[in-house]
């Protein structure tokens, strides 16, 4: 049978355990709003019994460990989904910037107004061919004819300026994406270093049988931050470390940052990512870096290429019709458009300075001849082989629509990814999150247990006094 002193020890131990439970509850309550924090519990069990003649007698409670409710599978799923969300967000943001620069926005100033897109290239191209049509009705050397020539030249300048502007803005978006890739690679390397350092600290802390929950929480937060930048895979080691691989290259091995990401220029100015030490090109499929590269080399490159092809075709086709024409002075052989693509498209300065040099006629010395400008006007309705048998306007509409499809697709995927992330976060919160109500219930429970143990000690104290009094009397 356990002595009174033994029972007193058991009550004192119980007090200590309840106090520790209160400490854990306090820790949980303190981190109630910390999303990276995993709810902690005190793992307790009945302490080893003592054999007596009447049988085994309990010796109270003992603390085994402090554990946290972390689910590695959920953490891994959240990391993967964070990568997906990061990639899609980067794509959506940059493609929407490009969409804004195209300035194809349908407006309607009043209910009686026909909705249209008045500011973009679509309207500019219509104006260009309409100005050719107008000029075809009067190419004469008279005030009206000259003003129509001036209007045609101005429309050509407007279209060239619109192509230049959109091209420059899209190039800026692509250049900014290169900068973003560089910055995100730097942030990823910082995270990889942090993970390696935390691995080292966790291994050291747990080597002696202790726990490093706080460090594990920090590492999880860093891993999720890294996931937003680049997708990776992890393997857990028995000593508590987590190894991180990106694109098949080990970046963190235990407490060592084995490799780092770096950007390199493959020759076209569009930065790609490789492993610094391994020298292996890394093709990321998730995270903002992947999103930035996908947007830059995908929809944005297609948009830029589509606009370039359109501008190039416009320049070539117009000039091939225009060049053999004659101006009011009987001169011929000049081009209307200069340049080769959207970026450097311009209008011949001679005709800009003197619209009478607009080569509208098919023959010299006939001011009223409009064969060339009539052919220019008809070009607007022609399906061109260089534009997949589309007209200039319909090809541009298709280019705009393609960008819209790309954004719409990314937005749909992003909405799904965000919903999945939310669902996974809820799942994790259900197992790892801190519940205020739950902790308050625990608080009462531990308080009552503490009071009971204290009462036990009080009772034992009285019993001991009684025993001592028996001897003195």
């Amino acid at each position, binding site marked *: 049978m356990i002595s009174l002193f033994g029972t007193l020890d058991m009550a004192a131990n119980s007090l200590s355990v309840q106090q520790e439970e209160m400490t854990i509850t306090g820790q949980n309550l303190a981190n109630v709003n910390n999303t990276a924090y995993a709810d902690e519990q005190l793992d307790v069990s009945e302490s080893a019994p003592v054999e007596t003649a009447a049988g085994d007698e309990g010796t109270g409670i003992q603390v085994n460990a402090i554990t946290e409710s972390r689910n590695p599978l959920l953490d891994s799923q959240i990391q993967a989904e964070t990568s997906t969300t990061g990639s899609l967000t980067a794509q959506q943001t940059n493609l929407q910037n490009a969409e804004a620069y195209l300035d194809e926005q349908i407006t309607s100033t009043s209910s009686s107004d026909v909705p249209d897109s008045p500011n973009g290239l679509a309207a500019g191209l219509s104006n260009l061919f309409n100005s050719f049509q107008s000029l075809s009705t009067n190419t004469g050397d008279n005030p009206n004819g000259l003003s129509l020539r001036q209007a045609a030249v101005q429309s050509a300048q407007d279209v060239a300026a619109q192509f230049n502007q959109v091209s420059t803005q899209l190039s800026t978006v692509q250049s900014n994406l290169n900068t973003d890739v560089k910055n995100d690679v730097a942030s990823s390397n910082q995270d990889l270093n942090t993970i390696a350092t935390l691995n080292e600290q966790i291994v050291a802390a747990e080597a002696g049988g202790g726990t490093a929950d706080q460090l594990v929480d920090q590492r999880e937060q860093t891993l999720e931050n890294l996931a937003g930048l680049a997708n990776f895979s992890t393997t857990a080691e028995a000593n508590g470390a987590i190894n991180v691989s990106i694109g098949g290259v080990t970046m963190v091995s235990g407490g060592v940052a084995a490799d780092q990401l770096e950007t390199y220029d493959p020759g076209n100015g569009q930065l790609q990512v490789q492993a610094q030490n391994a020298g292996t090109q890394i093709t990321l499929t998730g995270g903002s870096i992947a999103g930035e590269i996908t947007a830059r080399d995908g929809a944005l490159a297609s948009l830029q290429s589509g606009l370039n092809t359109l501008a190039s075709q416009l320049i070539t086709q117009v000039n091939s019709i225009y060049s053999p024409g004659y101006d009011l002075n009987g001169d011929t052989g000049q081009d209307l458009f200069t340049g080769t693509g959207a970026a450097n498209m311009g209008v011949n300065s001679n005709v800009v300075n003197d619209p009478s040099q607009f080569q509208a006629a098919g023959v010299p010395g006939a001011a009223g001849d409009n064969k060339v400008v*009539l052919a220019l006007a008809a070009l607007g309705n022609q399906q061109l082989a260089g534009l997949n048998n589309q007209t200039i306007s319909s090809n541009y509409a298709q280019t705009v629509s393609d960008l819209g499809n790309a954004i719409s697709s990314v937005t749909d995927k992003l909405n799904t990814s965000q919903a999945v992330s939310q669902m996974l976060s809820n799942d994790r919160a259900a197992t790892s999150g801190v519940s205020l109500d739950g902790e308050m219930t625990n608080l009462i429970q531990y308080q009552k247990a503490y009071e009971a143990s204290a009462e036990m000690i009080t009772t034992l104290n009285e019993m001991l006094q009684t025993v001592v009094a028996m001897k003195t009397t």
Partner: protein
Amino acid sequence: MQVSTTSFSNNFLYQIGQLQSQQTTLQGEASSGLSVTLPEDNPGVMNQVLNLQSEASSGAQYQNNIAQIQTSADSASDALNNLQSLVEQAGEIATESNGVDSSTQLSSYASQVGELINQALQIANTQNSQGNYIFGGTANGSAPFSATTDASGNVAAVTYSGNASVAESEIAPGLTVSAQSPGENNTGSGPEGVFADSRTGADLFSHLIALQQDLQSGNTTAISSTDAPNLTKDEDNVVTQISGNAVLQSTLTTAGNITQQQVTSENSQMSNDTSANMAQTLTQLSQTQTAYQAALESGTMIMGLSLMEFLS
């Protein structure tokens, strides 16, 4: 399942974020009346609208072209009708001179023909409202007909400095017309000349000058045998031109009506494609606002509650 404190607030934020986003979209639709404004809203509709916009803009331009050609055609019509009247008068003089022996009377007729020649010259050098000479072909920057006179001041010859080409303009996709007619066309091909054409035998100025000279010389035989038939050819030629002008005017009217219908249809299609269903939009907006309000109220109510409140 345990509901953590953060999961509730996270869910709450996610839900009101979704509702706010829906409200913004619906409010935008309600205020603009448009369900599609950006390419990403509906790429297919945007593609269609840009194509319709281009077609409607071309249609409006065709209407401008038609109006412009109509003005020139009206000028040509007036000139041709005056010319027909003039040729008829010359024909009447040729007829009336038949059997007249009086040199005074014949001289008087010759003077009248001289005036008709001058009037015909004026008609031949008619300019439209833009300042182009309508019977100069495409060399229409200067007066196409010029006269040389003899010692008596009579027109001895009329020279044509225009050409036999005309400028056409598009009034519908692939359909071109011209309100111009060349003053002369002796090439045997292309548009018929108004004053002279080798295919019809018309040569109005030469024929009027010959008539005047025959009247002055009293050669009534030549007048009846040559001048009068020639003037008939000239009149037939002018009548043909007037008919052509009428056909042109009819074509312009028809093309204008068709283009107007097409533009109206295209505009209507654009409105249909992009217009928001206001009843639906406003109903959805109202529903979303209600849901948003309910979410806010219930959320704040629940977040204010915890076991801690009751314990304290």
